[in-house]
């Protein structure tokens, strides 16, 4: 079938010039010199109010409309991880004790509605998610940004262009922890908030970013246009359009028909054909997320560490990367993800060893087999690797019942932590700093106080995290994280990491300068469309 598609596409390209019936052109031609980039996004976006925004896709729009004090450098794709670069703060300092962050703000910056930005506005925005006494305080914004705000002791306006944040305890990763997608400490216009209020501010997004909000048709499209008054290097594109197309085949058809010029989450089997047809493929090996299953420490089925170890040994991770992901991912055996300074790309752990796994299961008393329930969610493509796991585990005598849940149902269950009858559940996540692993594993992050839904707890590991965030030297901090990862994966075996995903992006030939950076959101000031 794919060969036919390719043949048809080539034939189509050859006949396209002559074959018109007067219904008008439908190619995504740029309106002006900088052009219009149309990205076929695979799912819906959330609210356009940074503290209440959540999700990778949404961040792609919000971080172009709004700016934070700092942002990730996403224009250098060869770097092993993204570092911070100035945004609304042109520079910043951290006190020697790691407690006081002082930001020197840019002068003369204005929001899209003309409201000037200064330290008072910065404090107003920070108070919105961390000071419950502030009139603009947002309960839901504070809930989203809790991972960031929980560290803050106080915020101060030093002078019109200097803003200071004091932490409760030292944390050298704190600033970059804020570069997450679920809860974003970016600045909105207080004047817009005064006009629209908490209820409607998300419908009228006004920031200082390189693009201005134009329109949003829910579940259809979002349109942004270049902000010519941007304080930094202006975007090349005239317009940036996010067009929601949930079906993968339709996204690819739209790309081939020239109706969109950027596609993410392509069907892996199609990538080779599309490249052959002239579309550009960009991969990024250092995306900070890892796809994994977390074991439930309360589950009788996997309470024996030998069982958890056997399950890790029974999985052919290289096979997943090669056969399922078709080279768009890499086998992983730790939960420290790529794209962070603590990641060890050469780590070798749990090579595929079904015989060793069988032996361990026998020692644990499961020579006659074992049944486990694995909660998974519908993400369009993830069932492929989860079924691979199921097949591999069947070979060593572990019967896996895949309990597939629709996303909202899954999320609600996942946030409550696993009940005893579930042996493991799945997720793909990470941050550009290694402290994310603490979020997933710390003893005090058991639900409802965090996302450690497998009820894992090891005080030694918590102590290593505490030391890591107090260490400014990345090499030394990485050593703490790697030791924590070793304990989690070799002594306690609390996870089943499987692969990291390299975010394949397909672009039309006329898209120039796009960079697939070390995140799930991109710097749209860089590309243009010819």
């Amino acid at each position, binding site marked *: 079938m794919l060969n036919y598609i390719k043949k048809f596409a080539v034939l189509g390209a050859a006949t396209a010039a002559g074959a018109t019936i007067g219904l008008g052109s*439908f190619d995504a031609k740029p309106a002006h010199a900088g052009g219009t980039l149309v990205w076929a996004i695979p799912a819906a976006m959330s609210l356009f109010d940074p503290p209440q925004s959540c999700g990778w896709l949404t961040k792609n729009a919000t971080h172009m409309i709004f700016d934070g004090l700092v942002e990730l450098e996403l224009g250098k794709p060869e770097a092993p991880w993204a570092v911070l670069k100035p945004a609304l703060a042109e520079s910043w300092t951290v006190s020697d004790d790691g407690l006081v962050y002082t930001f020197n703000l840019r002068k003369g910056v204005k929001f899209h509605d003309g409201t000037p930005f200064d330290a008072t506005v910065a404090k107003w925005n920070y108070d919105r998610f961390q000071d419950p006494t502030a009139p603009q305080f947002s309960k*839901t914004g504070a809930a989203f*940004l809790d991972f960031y705000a929980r560290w803050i002791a106080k915020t101060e306006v030093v002078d019109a262009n200097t803003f200071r944040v004091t932490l409760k305890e030292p944390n050298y990763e704190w600033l970059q922890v804020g570069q997450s997608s679920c809860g974003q400490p970016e600045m909105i216009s207080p004047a817009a908030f005064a006009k629209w209020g908490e209820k409607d501010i998300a419908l009228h997004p006004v920031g200082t970013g390189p693009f201005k909000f134009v329109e949003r048709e829910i579940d259809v499209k979002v349109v942004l246009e270049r902000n010519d008054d941007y304080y930094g290097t202006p975007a090349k594109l005239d317009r940036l359009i996010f067009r929601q197309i949930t079906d993968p085949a339709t996204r690819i*058809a739209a790309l081939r028909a020239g109706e969109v010029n950027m596609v993410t989450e392509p069907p892996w089997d199609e990538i080779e054909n599309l490249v052959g047809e002239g579309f550009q493929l960009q991969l990024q090996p250092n995306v900070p997320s890892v796809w994994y299953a977390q074991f439930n420490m309360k589950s009788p089925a996997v309470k024996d560490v030998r069982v958890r170890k056997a399950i890790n040994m029974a999985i052919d991770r290289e096979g997943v990367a090669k056969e399922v992901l078709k080279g768009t991912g890499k086998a992983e055996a730790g939960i420290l993800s790529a794209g962070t300074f603590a990641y060890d790309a050469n780590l070798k752990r749990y090579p595929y060893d079904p015989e060793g796994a069988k032996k361990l299961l026998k020692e644990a008393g499961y020579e006659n087999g074992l049944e486990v329930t694995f909660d998974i969610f519908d993400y369009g493509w993830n069932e492929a690797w989860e079924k691979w796991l199921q097949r591999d585990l069947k070979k060593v005598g572990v019967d896996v019942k895949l309990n597939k849940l629709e996303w909202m149902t899954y999320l609600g269950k996942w946030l409550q932590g696993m009940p005893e009858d579930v042996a493991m559940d799945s997720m793909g996540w990470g941050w550009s700093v290694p402290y994310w692993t603490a979020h997933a594993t710390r003893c005090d992050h058991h639900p409802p106080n965090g996302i450690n839904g497998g009820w894992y707890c090891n005080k030694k590991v918590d102590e290593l995290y505490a030391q890591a965030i107090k260490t400014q030297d990345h090499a030394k901090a990485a050593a703490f994280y790697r030791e924590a990862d070793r304990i989690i994966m070799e002594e306690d075996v609390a996870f089943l990491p499987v692969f990291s995903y390299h975010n394949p992006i397909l672009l039309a030939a006329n898209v120039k300068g796009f960079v697939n950076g070390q995140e799930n959101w991109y710097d749209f000031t860089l590309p243009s469309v010819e």
Partner: protein
Amino acid sequence: MTRFIVIRLLMIIPIMLGVSFFVFILAHLAPGDVTTTLTGPYATEEVREQLRETLGLNLPLPVQYGRWLGQMLQGEFGTSIANRRMVSELIFPKFASSAILALTSAALAYTIGLLVGIFAAARPYRSFDRISLAVTLMFGSMPPYWLGLLLVLLFSLTWRWLPATGMTKIIDGGGAVDVLAHLVLPTIAAAAAPAAIIARTVRATMLEILNQNYIKVARAKGIRRNVILRKHALRNALPPIATICGLQLGYLLGGVLFVEVIFAWPGIGYQLWQAIQARDIPTIQGASLIVAIAFVLVNLAVDVFNAYTDPKIRISEGARAR
């Protein structure tokens, strides 16, 4: 006739109440809580509970339903929980998009279905009839998403005659010509199965009528076949044909979800699906209700049409009403 229409219109009220109640119950029975996406993974249960209180989701279900009903009686669909837009702002444009697609698909399906059915019945068991039986069976069984993909492959990607996705061009789109160009493929994909169903129904009904004694008498009297078909057979076949046509239009108005997804057509079916995934209960309620109202009104129109064309129905309905 007026009395008949008024009675049928009044019957819509209990039907709507029933539909809205069942949709409400189903939306609440589904697992998953909208506050998990509205507050994020780090929110405490206290924050979630506060949000439930703000949104009125912690109230007993009958109270929630009563509130919603009260709003509805004032013409308000409420506010979308997930998007913070007025539900009416969300669903009416989407319903309009679905209606455009449904009406063009219905027009195409009716035309093809009636013509094929009548011609097949006029010369039963001849080659046209046999071919049409096979073709309608094929189209009737063809999943619309498969047909949609095939149409896109041929008309959009191979010959580049027609656009593949959307309702208008995404850049500088709009205008009747643009919408028409985008309508062609989804209309064919959505119309194929209804056309086949209507064709087979028309054929079967016409054949049954053509075997009636009064038709044989008409033939014996030497009346021309065309006149028999048009004046005696088709008129008597109209009520069941109108009923099946109305049902098909009702389904099309409900949003042909697969067609909307394959062609990224911004319709009400796709909107409803997205709302269900987000557990956005006000939008689910509003979208379901508008689809249900459309379905009931189309069926009412069919009933009125049948009563108009068939005096037996009018008389029996009138007698029952008295």
